[in-house]
């Protein structure tokens, strides 16, 4: 297949791996930011081709993984609201929040639909004016423009039964947050080629300068990845810390101007909670005031504020030391190691599992 096979060519890949081995004089730690790159690295065994001292760390660039559990729980609560059709991308449906996953909610009767584009959700809203269609808008700068276009299309059509539960996130603030952490080990970054195709890469210049790290825009196929890694290592070996584009066949400095214009028109930059990383300032997008009428949180405040399907599990409280396992109403009855409701009852090191095993009689 054109534009794929030449970038999966084993001979070219081995030549690049050889160049990397010849170049490296000391250990280096590089992070690829994007989950798509992580998968490609492992799928094609690229990590196995690198010299021992070169460590690849896998970054927070999986949109599904970084979406806060709270957002998934809000989506589940919205899906359970009478009259609502909850739409999202396929791989978002399986991720558990604290109250289960959207697939599990669907199995229990919620109207959850998988769509291939946010515009499909707009079409659904147009076709079913008696229903409320909510699109769970997750993902990075790659998917956000499509969400923006959906809002513009819904506004054009004068739709009143379409809204978004927005959880879009931005890559550069996450990179800055990782580099600012006191225990940071990352010496160079591979920036995500698809994100840069949309946004360009000039916004990485201040980060490279401030933290003194090379940032190399990198693609997704084996040869792309090895080219990105090689370029990053060249800079590290030469003590340079520049922004470099190793994915020139797709990425331009300024990115995709119409997509960025749609983002600026529809969204505003806000602080955002990342699953596993906590809140990062200016790292998310939410609807701008002019489009606030499409905000599902404003349209269904009760569903979003108090997710209806919150179970009795109090594992979040337990993990923060605010409560004890035996204080949970489900402990030992609705929740056991064989049928756990929360992570603390599963893990062999979990507090609830330990209490169940050793203290149940006393409870």
């Amino acid at each position, binding site marked *: 297949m054109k534009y794929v096979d030449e970038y999966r060519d084993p001979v070219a890949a081995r030549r690049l791996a050889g160049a990397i081995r010849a170049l490296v004089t000391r250990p280096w730690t590089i992070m690829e930011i994007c989950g798509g790159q992580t998968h490609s690295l492992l799928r094609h065994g690229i990590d196995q081709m690198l010299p021992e001292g070169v460590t690849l760390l896998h970054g927070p660039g999986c949109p599904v993984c970084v979406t806060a559990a709270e957002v998934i729980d809000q989506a589940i609560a919205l899906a359970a609201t009478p009259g609502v059709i909850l739409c999202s991308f396929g791989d978002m449906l399986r991720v558990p929040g604290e109250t289960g996953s959207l697939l599990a909610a669907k199995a229990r009767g919620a109207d959850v639909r998988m769509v291939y584009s946010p515009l499909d959700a707009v079409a659904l809203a147009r076709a079913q004016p008696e229903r409320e269609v909510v699109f769970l808008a997750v993902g990075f700068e790659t998917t956000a423009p499509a969400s923006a276009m959906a809002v513009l299309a819904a506004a054009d059509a004068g739709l009143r039964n379409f809204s978004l539960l927005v959880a879009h996130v931005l890559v550069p603030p996450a990179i800055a947050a990782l580099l600012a952490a006191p225990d940071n080990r990352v010496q160079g970054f591979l920036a995500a080629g698809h994100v840069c195709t949309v946004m360009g890469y000039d916004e990485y210049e201040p980060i490279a300068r401030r933290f003194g790290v090379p940032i190399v825009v990198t693609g997704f196929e084996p040869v792309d990845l090895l080219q990105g890694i090689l370029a990053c290592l060249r800079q590290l070996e030469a003590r340079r810390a520049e922004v470099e584009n190793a994915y020139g066949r797709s990425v331009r400095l300024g990115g995709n101007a119409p997509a960025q214009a749609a983002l600026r028109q529809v969204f505003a930059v806000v602080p955002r909670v990342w699953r596993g990383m906590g809140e990062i300032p200016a790292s998310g997008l939410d609807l701008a005031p002019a489009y606030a009428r499409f905000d599902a949180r404003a349209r269904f405040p009760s569903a979003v504020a108090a997710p209806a399907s919150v179970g009795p599990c109090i*594992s979040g409280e337990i993990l923060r030391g605010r409560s004890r396992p035996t204080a949970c109403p489900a402990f030992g009855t609705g929740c056991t190691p064989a049928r756990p409701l*929360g*992570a603390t009852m599963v893990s062999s090191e979990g507090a609830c599992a330990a209490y169940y095993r050793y203290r149940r009689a006393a409870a």
Partner: protein
Amino acid sequence: MNAPVCPLPATEEGVIERGHGGGGALTGRLVAALFRPCFGAPPDEPLHDGATLAVGGSRLAFTTDSFVVTPLEFPGGDIGALAVIGTVNDLAMCGAKPLSLSAGFILEEGLDIARLRRIAASMGQAAAAAGVRVVTGDTKVVERGKGDGIYITTAGVGLIPPGVTIGPQCVRPGDAVLLSGDVGRHGIAIMAAREGLGFETEIVSDLASLAPAVAGLIAAGVTLHCLRDLTRGGLASALVEIATGAGVELRLDAAAVPVGEAVRGACEILGLDPWYVANEGRLVAFVPEPEAARALAILRSHPGGAEAAVIGRVAAASGRGRVLAETIGGVRVLDLLSGEQLPRIC
């Protein structure tokens, strides 16, 4: 906002999800932990596409399958042809010559009878082409809104020729692994038709009876250690199941697995792995290495078999059983899907 926690996916004791019918790990667990114990099946009895029954002096293969495809008609076939060919293929995978089928219909109130006639006629044609007859059946009608038009369950019996024993337990180190054609077409054809994906090239299902190819292999005296048709879960799931059942390590030559350009393109766009996409007219055959070339020539001589290939070999007996595929930088281990394959976000 709560502190980061890692809640659990729903367990078996919850409710049935789509993935339980996906042919992957969830389906396997349902069969192993729920159906087999409830039906009193011996835990070490090998799992195969059909059961073998000794009747008098002969051996019958017996199998059943249910069909719930949406849309009912798709490029390359319809639910009727699928219901006949799916069961014929399961019989063929036991090495059996298919004899007779049953067909149970669950029809939804409001179904267009002309459409039912079209689908029944298609079943008749598929059965005639496979040399079987539908000899018994049943019809039930459910209320409007309680079904997707038509569900069909077929069961079939076939006669296993003397001396033929096929199953994972017969797989031996050194066996060659043959694939009968390109993979991934049925699943992508259905997805494109169902979701209106509008690809430039129409992708046509590979739906086809495998009985003639298997009969050809048996007639030529090829020693068939194991056969498996690649349905839900695709090539990878079938190979993982066989490797696990046989307790052997399979080594695949990834480049030898034929995948059509249109299917590759669609899978790239949707983030799917064609090795896990469904087929309805493809098989893998495990044969002793010295017979591989002869078996390959026979597979290639059948319609749709031009791209048949040797895609790997059984490397060694290895307790647990696994499938390894060569990659650019090393090897990767293939596993069963943990649920349905879902299109990715970006």
